[in-house]
């Protein structure tokens, strides 16, 4: 229970390490502050508990010399906080703003209560005859960026891949774009992370990450004529 970082599930995404890095840094900073402040608090409670013949000191803390004892730690807090933001900005940009070029695009539509997964097929275009729709499952190759188009049919859903440190709300009426790249083959849970009705609990899919040969095999099975 002491090492919070151990509770994060296995990371199998390229940017997951960056996200974990931010979380870990925040964790170090907050643990340090926790022990410093609560330690000081505990020390004061012990040292300054009421004792016969000793009066409290009349310290108002409003003159700068006294206030400095509190203002200096506050300045340290500001600096640390701004540093955390600076650390986080490129990671946010990497996950949510930039997107590596790739030829694999999948459209995922959240609906009550399943994931409609749409592949454009060999022609690379959605809305054509070779599109293939799956329910509650995605198949991607390892080591290749995947471009995801997030949509929603009815209410707000949220696409959450814990092992990839990726989450994105899907909003009806909006087309939102995202991406990820898997680093390890396997089968990864894909729960819905936004209350979407009585079927929200249990609304989940599976992401299958295949080694390259296995993925080619899967593609051939989906589009035998291509």
């Amino acid at each position, binding site marked *: *229970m002491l090492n*919070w970082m151990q*509770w*994060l*599930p296995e990371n199998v995404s390229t940017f997951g390490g960056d*996200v974990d890095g*931010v*979380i870990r840094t*925040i*964790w170090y*900073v907050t643990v340090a502050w*926790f022990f410093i402040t*609560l330690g000081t608090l505990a020390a*004061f*409670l012990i040292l*300054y*508990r*009421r*004792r016969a013949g000793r*009066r*409290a*000191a*009349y310290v*108002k*803390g409003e003159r700068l010399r*006294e206030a400095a*004892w*509190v*203002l200096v*730690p*506050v300045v340290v807090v500001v600096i640390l*906080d*701004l540093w*955390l*933001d600076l650390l*986080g900005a490129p990671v*946010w940009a990497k*996950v*949510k*703003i930039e997107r590596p070029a790739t030829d694999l695009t999948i459209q995922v539509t959240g609906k009550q209560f399943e994931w409609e997964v749409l592949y454009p097929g060999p022609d690379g275009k959605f809305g054509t005859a070779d599109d293939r729709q799956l329910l509650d499952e995605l198949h991607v190759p390892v080591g290749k960026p995947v471009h995801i188009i997030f949509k929603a049919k009815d*209410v*707000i859903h*949220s696409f959450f891949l*814990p092992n990839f*440190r*990726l*989450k994105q709300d899907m*909003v*009806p*009426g*909006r087309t939102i774009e995202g991406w990820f790249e898997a680093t390890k083959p396997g089968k990864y849970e894909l*729960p*819905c*992370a936004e*209350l979407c*009705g*009585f079927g*929200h*609990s*249990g609304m989940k899919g599976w992401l299958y990450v295949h080694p390259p040969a296995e993925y080619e095999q899967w593609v051939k099975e989906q589009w035998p004529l291509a």
Partner: protein
Amino acid sequence: MNQARAGTITAEAVEHHAARGFWRTYVFSTDHKMIAKQYLTLGLAWTFVGGLLAAVMRWQLAWPDTAVPGWGEIGPEVYNMLVTMHGTIMVFFVAMPILLGAFGNFLIPLMIGTRDMAFPRLNMLSVWTFALASLVLFVSFFVPGGAASAGWTGYPPLSARPAYTGVNWGLNLWILAQALEFAAFLMGGVNYLTTAIILRAPGMTFLRVPMVVWQQITAAALFLLSVGPLIAGAVMLLLDRTIGTSFYAPEVGGDPLLWQHLFWFFGHPEVYVVLLPALGAVLEVLPVFSRKPLFGYRWIVGATIVAGGLSFIVWAHHMFISGMDPRLAMPFSITTILISVPFAYIVFAMIATLWRGSIRFATPMLFALGFLAMFIMGGLTGIFNGSAPSDIYVSRTYFVVAHFHYTLFSAVFFGGFAGFYFWFPKMFGRILSEPLGKLHFWLTLVFFNVTFFPLHHIGLAGMVRRIANPLQYEALVPYQWINVVSTVGTFCMVATQLVFALNVVWSLVAGRRAPTNPWEANTLEWAAPSPPPHLNWGPALPTVYCGPYEYSLPEAREDYLPQNLDPARAR
């Protein structure tokens, strides 16, 4: 009502006012102290309901799809309703009536040395409006389709079309109940601000006003200025549901994200509306039980106002992954990080108040210290949420649930209990049992942490919010023991409150009578009798000579100096 403004009144007038019969004294009262007790009663009643809902929820999470004793099996529809109503009740029908309605009403006129609020009849109207809101919300449990189930945040389109939840009138009444609750607290807010501005006793300058008053009026101002957009949004939601407008319906040109902006523009200041009154109580208790001035009183006032102002520009940190333009994330991350600054100051100042003090560990002080420790924890986990990339992972998980319970629970319950134990003698004229109080504190502290600490871990493990059955997720099955631990903690914590209830009932009936100033505190309410009579003060209002935190003055005989005591007499 003119007596509220007149300084001097005759003794006959006081007596005449006091003898008014049962209905005018206990039901249709314009006396701020009685109104405070009415808010307290309603708030405590709702605490029982909100706690019960939480207990049932936690049973379902620990032992999914087993029948809850006395209730039956909880299906996912009922679970969503439990989650929704628990949140709505705790924030709007427990925290606000107790911290703002009860403490604010009781304390503000007494602490500034006046006879009642500036608008006593408006005050009565406010508590009756709140009672009506309570009735509407209560009724919503029993209408066909059940109570609201779209989360306390009520995001559309889920909340905008009855077909999506299966709940029709329940959600409409939910919106109505909150609108009435907003109206009640708008009235209260106007009253608090006006009273504090114009009815202070002679000598009571703004910088001699106790912290409770500063925190209450800042909270009132925050509420007044932030609730407007949500009222607009709620009207839009109600109209979408009933007459087919399309504010949140994308098929007809609407946008679900509009609600989120309007909700959170209010939602963030709202958490400070809940926090600040609790902070005020704690800031009042710490100096009294350290026998030391509050460290940096003026700086704390400044920090409070700055935090209040900043609270209007952080709202989208609730929406980092909502689908809004991702370029908005970093600006809101920065404002969010900045708002931790004034609160860091206040937390450090609270600790500094203890330095070189002479600390007594009476029950109010224990709860105040408990607040401090738990709030620090909650504030620190806030950083994981406020940093946008970190929030990608932790948002919508139990990590957030842990964060806001550490902050809100510590405010409402630790802060609230600190205030309750502190002012009980003044409010009711009786002393509460110290041993029972201490037992209540330690058990609550331990069980609170057993309940909520592990939720950080299961959140990091990927457990999302608002799910009725964790066992449906393979990744969570090995961690189900955490849910069981948290549930057991919940039951123990709820059971512990019986100690509190016992203490209160026993003391009200047979407790030792309270002296005027049992804690040897400085603020004006301790100069009035316990409990204060109607119109608070005798024929003349008190005169104020100094600030509220003059403890342990080196040259004074006593280690406290009441604000209404002529300092020439203290030497």
